């Protein structure tokens, strides 16, 4: 609607057939299966409860949290309003410091650029810093197709890769696995692993370290994402906990950073706000252990060839939507996932996208076009817990409701549901018809044959009555009672 409103042509969304933004089944179908997985429910329930508590504790320490949050939201809003100018400034600054900037319209272009750069550098293998953007575009698959091995170095991402699994959380991709499951994966897939490996977290971390160390030392080519880019100096930044990211960012000869165009902040001062908001919201720490920043190339220090790939992949289309564009303000802290009662039960895979949880439910459908992810905006009870914790105050419930309407309004033919809602609206806006309809609802009493609850119902109502009773409608509505009480008796 906004695109039309602005008189702009429809902007391209993320292309089909590449990357990981679309599932094969709808959310309710996926959730029906995952909800039956008791181990998953236990793992997720435990992990999200723990991290929720940690976050709440460290956020409560800051008396000015709400002001910080509003500052974060305001900075993002102002940045997005002039994103084109800031991006060009970023390009100028990165170039001036010896880096090369590439503009990728979509996943295919971004993958082609990275594959080409790897080939030019003669790399047969690539080490990777945990990155959502490269997961989004399916870079590992593209590299593999070109005969180049990609090694994930983030511990949780490594667990997912070794287990031939999919990430289910944006910060802890293996959150759905517990430590004995992790031990099993390591024991099965790591060539030189100690056969007596236990599920002690320290032992598991040491096994991963030994496994990765060798790869860091021989790697010549690294790919990363970015948490932030500072336009005024062309500086990129990665925030992490393990230090594996820093190994990748400093040891290889060539570094390619793939970054969504929305990750940019105009100035260093802006970083001050986000570096306070992010760690407390994501890992529940006051400060994250490793914050790496780099600008272009420094002779004799770190990678001597640096490339920045600026990825659109549907983001400009999101930016054009006045309501939905707020989703681009996300700093990927994952706080909204950790508090979401739907995510906690259904798990991240049910969302069918690398972006699960509340943020995924508003971001994936916008990047792909809402019809390609039409069930996601409905995958929420609109409880609002996500909005409350979001460090940049993204009103996720309102965007979910907006996207539901975009889906409804995209239909070219009436559906059974739209016909029913239109009829109901006609009735509800005409008091006489409404009272007649209520009397008809009262007829539902006959269905229950004197019992206090209705029998199980057919059609869409079956979804309710399979697990919940519906009370038998009363003999008299509230308004009928009122009219009788007050002598009118009319209805």
């Amino acid at each position, binding site marked *: 609607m906004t695109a039309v409103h602005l008189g702009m042509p429809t902007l391209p969304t993320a292309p089909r057939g590449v990357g990981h933004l679309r599932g094969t089944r709808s959310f309710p179908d996926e959730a029906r299966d995952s*909800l039956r997985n008791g181990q998953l429910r236990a793992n997720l329930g435990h992990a999200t409860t723990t991290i929720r508590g940690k976050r709440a504790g460290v956020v409560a320490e800051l008396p000015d949290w709400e002001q910080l949050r509003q500052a974060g939201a305001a900075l993002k809003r102002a940045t997005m309003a002039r994103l084109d100018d800031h991006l060009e400034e970023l390009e100028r600054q990165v170039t001036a410091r010896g880096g090369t900037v590439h503009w990728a319209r979509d996943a295919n272009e971004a993958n082609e650029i990275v594959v080409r750069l790897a080939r030019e550098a003669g790399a047969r293998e690539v080490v990777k810093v945990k990155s959502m953007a490269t997961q989004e575009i399916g870079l590992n698959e593209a590299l593999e197709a070109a005969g180049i091995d990609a090694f994930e170095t983030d511990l949780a991402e490594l667990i997912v890769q070794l287990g031939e699994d999919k990430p289910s959380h944006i910060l802890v991709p293996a959150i759905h696995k517990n430590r004995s499951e992790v031990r099993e994966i390591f024991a099965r897939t790591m060539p030189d692993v100690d056969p007596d490996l236990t599920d002690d977290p320290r032992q598991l971390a040491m096994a991963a370290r030994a496994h990765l160390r060798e790869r860091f030392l021989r790697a010549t080519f690294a790919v990363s994402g970015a948490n932030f880019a500072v336009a005024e100096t062309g500086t990129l930044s990665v925030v992490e906990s393990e230090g594996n990211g820093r190994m990748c960012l400093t040891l290889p000869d060539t570094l390619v950073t793939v970054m969504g165009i929305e990750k940019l902040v105009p100035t260093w001062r802006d970083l001050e706000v986000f570096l306070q908001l992010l760690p407390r919201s994501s890992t529940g720490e006051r400060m994250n252990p490793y914050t790496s920043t780099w600008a272009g190339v420094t002779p004799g220090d770190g990678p001597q060839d640096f490339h920045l790939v600026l990825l659109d992949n549907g983001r400009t289309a999101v930016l054009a939507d006045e309501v939905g564009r707020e989703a681009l303000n996300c700093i990927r802290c994952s706080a909204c996932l950790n508090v979401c009662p739907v995510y906690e039960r259904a798990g991240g895979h049910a969302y069918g996208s690398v972006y699960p949880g509340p943020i995924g439910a508003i971001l994936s459908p916008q990047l792909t076009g809402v019809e390609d992810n039409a069930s996601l905006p409905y995958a929420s009870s609109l*409880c609002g817990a996500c909005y409350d914790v979001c460090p940049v105050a993204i009103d996720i419930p309102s965007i979910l*409701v907006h996207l539901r309407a975009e889906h*409804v309004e995209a239909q070219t033919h009436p559906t059974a549901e739209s016909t029913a809602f239109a009829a109901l609206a*006609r009735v*509800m806006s005409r008091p006489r018809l409404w009272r007649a309809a209520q009397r008809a*609802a009262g007829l539902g009493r006959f269905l229950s044959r004197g019992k206090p609850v209705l029998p199980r119902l057919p059609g869409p109502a079956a979804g309710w009555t399979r697990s919940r009773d519906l*009370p038998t409608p009363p003999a008299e*509505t509230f308004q009928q009672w009122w009219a009788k009480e007050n002598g009118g008796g009319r209805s």
Partner: protein
Amino acid sequence: MKVAVFATCLVDTLTPQVGIATVRLLQRLGHEVVVPPGQSCCGQMHVNTGYRRDAVSIVANHVRAFAGSDVIVSPSGSCVASIHHQQAQVARRAGDTALAEAAQELAGRTYELSQFLVDVLGVTDVGASYPHRVTYHPTCHSLRLLRVGDRPLQLLRAVRGLDLVELPGAEQCCGFGGTFAVKNAETSTAMLTDKMAAVLSTHAEVCTAGDASCLLHIGGGLTRLTSGTRTVHLAEILASTDGARTATQVTQPAVLA
């Protein structure tokens, strides 16, 4: 004060006892109560399911029905939140500025029951008596959209004979979410199951809340399990007095904690 009651479509049709209790309570507190006859629905279900265009005529009807009312009180945090946060927006998006302004203005005169009692009337002891073991579920929209805070608890604490027990994980959603309960029935049921487990762990006879919709959901689950715990709207508890109580209402917890 002359108070207009907006019952909500759900209370009007399915749980009239909640509307009746709201009327009785306000009358007992000495106010003149009216029930404007043109009322039906606030439009929330349409908006939240994606039918914001269809919702415009419902909003217009709501605004028309309450045009002459100075103060409107409703026993639903969710519907009042929709009146405050959605009605004007929906009208504005449809290009009906006059309706948007009227809706905005109406929202300023519309209160959720516990907020009206505590903030406008300044009472926490409404003279109620309810000798039961009760646990309170803060519904999501009351909690996060309207920020009613502990007002319902203040009111419950002042009720004679009421034994208030804290609900573990109180702020977790019960899984209702309007059409979510049908479109994502399994996930909704999983959330409900955990909510019911928490309610039952309190050994309360009654689970109360400020929204009839969430109570319909929790109550529908509890009766399906043939549980002895029932759901009762906050308005019904606050409307109860010694005189209004029947012998059968005086019960003990079925299971002792």
